[in-house]
């Protein structure tokens, strides 16, 4: 099994998509010769040619819109938002068009397209290149929202997204691109059943920590802290944010009686806010012996300076402290 980065794993998945469907193309800014701002599409132009690896002008609206038009006419497009912040310029095609057409036209069309975008902070890129906007899209019926956290699930989920008949927002946190691990490069799945399922990535019985995207990695590092060696911690990677698999979390909380949700995005109207609301409204309510807690990014634009950036995003030590607070004060 090869050890590859998430960026390489995504490229392998993209190659398989291109190999498997000759109507598939990738369009985006600087994805050709440049290889993508994060190098994900490096080498694809040489392999597939400019008819399929399409460098676009800086025009996010038409990048997303052309995916919609191609998708409803029998093609299978994958487009890239260089930084997911730029998706703001493409909201009409995504929210008013891609998400709506299947429903609005009474089921007469499907819109099978993927919009990939580099999300998240940690690179000092400041407020307009560091956001985690995933929850915006979860609020829109008709879209699916996927947030991988490592090379293997990025590979698997991108392929699952490709075989799904719906528009997919695929948010790739910048800090996962260089994570490296062994990856099973499996074939194209028969269906998209991997979407909409969260995964218990660490089993435990004292507390459930739910998270997604790169914050899962921060959580997994945090729980290795020596001061937590006597705690049994369960960690759940949500993986798909819409549809959100709350059942896995509810079942876990029934066993651990505690829920800590960790995310980089601000807390208001967020994934964590929704998840906690779902859990306390569920059969797990009576199992809880502590109020569920949301450890989220500050309600602030992302600052550039490293020390300020880390002040906005929950850090390992914040997570360690919160776990102890929730367990020790029993």
């Amino acid at each position, binding site marked *: 099994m090869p050890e590859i980065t998430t960026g390489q794993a995504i490229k392998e998945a993209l190659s398989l998509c291109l190999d498997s469907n*000759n*109507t598939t*193309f990738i369009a985006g800014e600087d994805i050709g010769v440049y290889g993508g701002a994060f190098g994900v599409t490096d080498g694809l132009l040489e392999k597939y040619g400019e*008819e399929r690896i*399409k460098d*676009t*002008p800086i*025009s996010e*609206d*038409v990048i*997303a*819109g*052309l*995916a*919609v*038009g*191609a*998708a*409803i*006419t*029998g*093609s299978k*497009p994958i487009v890239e938002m260089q930084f997911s912040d730029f998706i703001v310029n493409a909201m*009409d*095609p995504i929210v*008013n*068009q891609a998400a709506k*057409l*299947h*429903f*609005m*036209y*009474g*089921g*007469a*069309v*499907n*819109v*099978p397209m993927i919009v990939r975008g580099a999300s998240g902070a940690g690179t000092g890129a400041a407020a307009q290149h560091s956001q985690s906007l995933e929850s915006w899209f979860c609020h829109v*019926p*008709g879209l*699916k929202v996927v947030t991988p956290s490592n090379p293997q699930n990025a590979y698997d989920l991108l392929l699952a997204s490709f075989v799904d*008949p*719906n528009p997919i927002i695929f948010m790739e946190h910048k800090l996962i691109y260089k994570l490296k691990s062994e990856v099973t490069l499996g074939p194209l799945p028969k269906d998209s059943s991997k979407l909409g399922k969260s995964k218990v990535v660490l089993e435990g019985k004292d507390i459930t920590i739910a998270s997604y995207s790169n914050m899962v990695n921060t959580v997994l590092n945090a729980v290795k802290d020596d001061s937590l060696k006597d705690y049994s911690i369960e960690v759940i990677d949500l993986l798909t944010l819409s549809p959100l698999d709350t059942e896995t979390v509810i079942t876990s909380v029934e066993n651990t009686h505690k829920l800590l949700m960790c995310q980089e995005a601000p807390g208001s109207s967020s994934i964590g806010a929704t998840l906690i609301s779902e859990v306390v409204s569920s059969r797990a309510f009576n199992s809880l012996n502590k109020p569920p807690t949301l450890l989220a990014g500050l309600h602030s634009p992302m600052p550039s300076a490293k020390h300020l950036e880390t002040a906005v995003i929950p850090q390992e030590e914040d997570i360690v402290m919160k776990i102890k607070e929730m367990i020790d004060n029993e």
Partner: protein
Amino acid sequence: MNKENKLELYRMMLLIRLFEEALEEMFSRGLLHGTMHLSIGQEATATGACLALEREDLITSTHRGHGHCLAKGADPYKMFAELLGREDGYCRGRGGSMHIADLSNGNLGANGIVAGSLTISVGAALSLKIQKLDNIVLCFFGDGAVNEGSFHEALNLASLWELPVLFVCENNQYGMSMASENAVAGGSIAQRAESYGIKSISIDGNDVEEVYNSVLEFKETIKSSGKPMFIESVTYRYRGHSKSDRNLYRTSEEIEFWKEEKDPLKRFIGKLTEEDVEIETLKEIEAQVREVIRDSVKKALQSPESPKTNLEEDSYA
């Protein structure tokens, strides 16, 4: 164009006019929920453009799209059923007036967002190119759309990538209440297309033969060159923007002028009779169209409502 073609243009313009007049009547009787945007006065552009296309050519349409839909071959019964919220409607009551799609006739759907379909038409044209299909996409939009960013992004990309799109701007001279002359800097919509390297013309959008011939010629040029083209079709809507419009932004004299002097149906009837088409022939067509409308309305009113179930499930494919 032979006589048969001309009578078909007449029949279609009349079908659109009577379809929308029937809608108005149903609206005033309280039978329709929601609003609608009528294209009465603009029938020549929809008719001339769509009848110059083949069934496999694609169109994208606008909020004022009943005419495009009918001219591309839609069944009036299924359209009435849609507006009435019936299960037999094109969108099973989920789309209504503004969102009718009819894929089997190449209609990719009407769009409630001004300029919303421009980028979609570019993607559809890319699909045709990728799938090596020898057809074009005709993208309808209004004068209001030319000041949206997506208009410029779409034209730029269609030109750069040499995509088979025929952009047809139905310039009815008002974006809701905003007069086009107060909204379009530089004055000319057609010139904007030229600045993207797209050949464009401005035509009399109330002359159905001029529209038909222009679209036919441009369609063939697009097929041979692979490059997009642009038509500004100048027309006028008699009714308000939607049902809530009090027409405060224009004079009744202006509306009367267009109705009396420029009406596409009146002009075409005049032309046909000059060309020795029997008035009886036109009356016969009118009687047939009236019967189609009457029967379609009746059948739609009797058809079952869409059930309320599965709305969440239906959000996803």
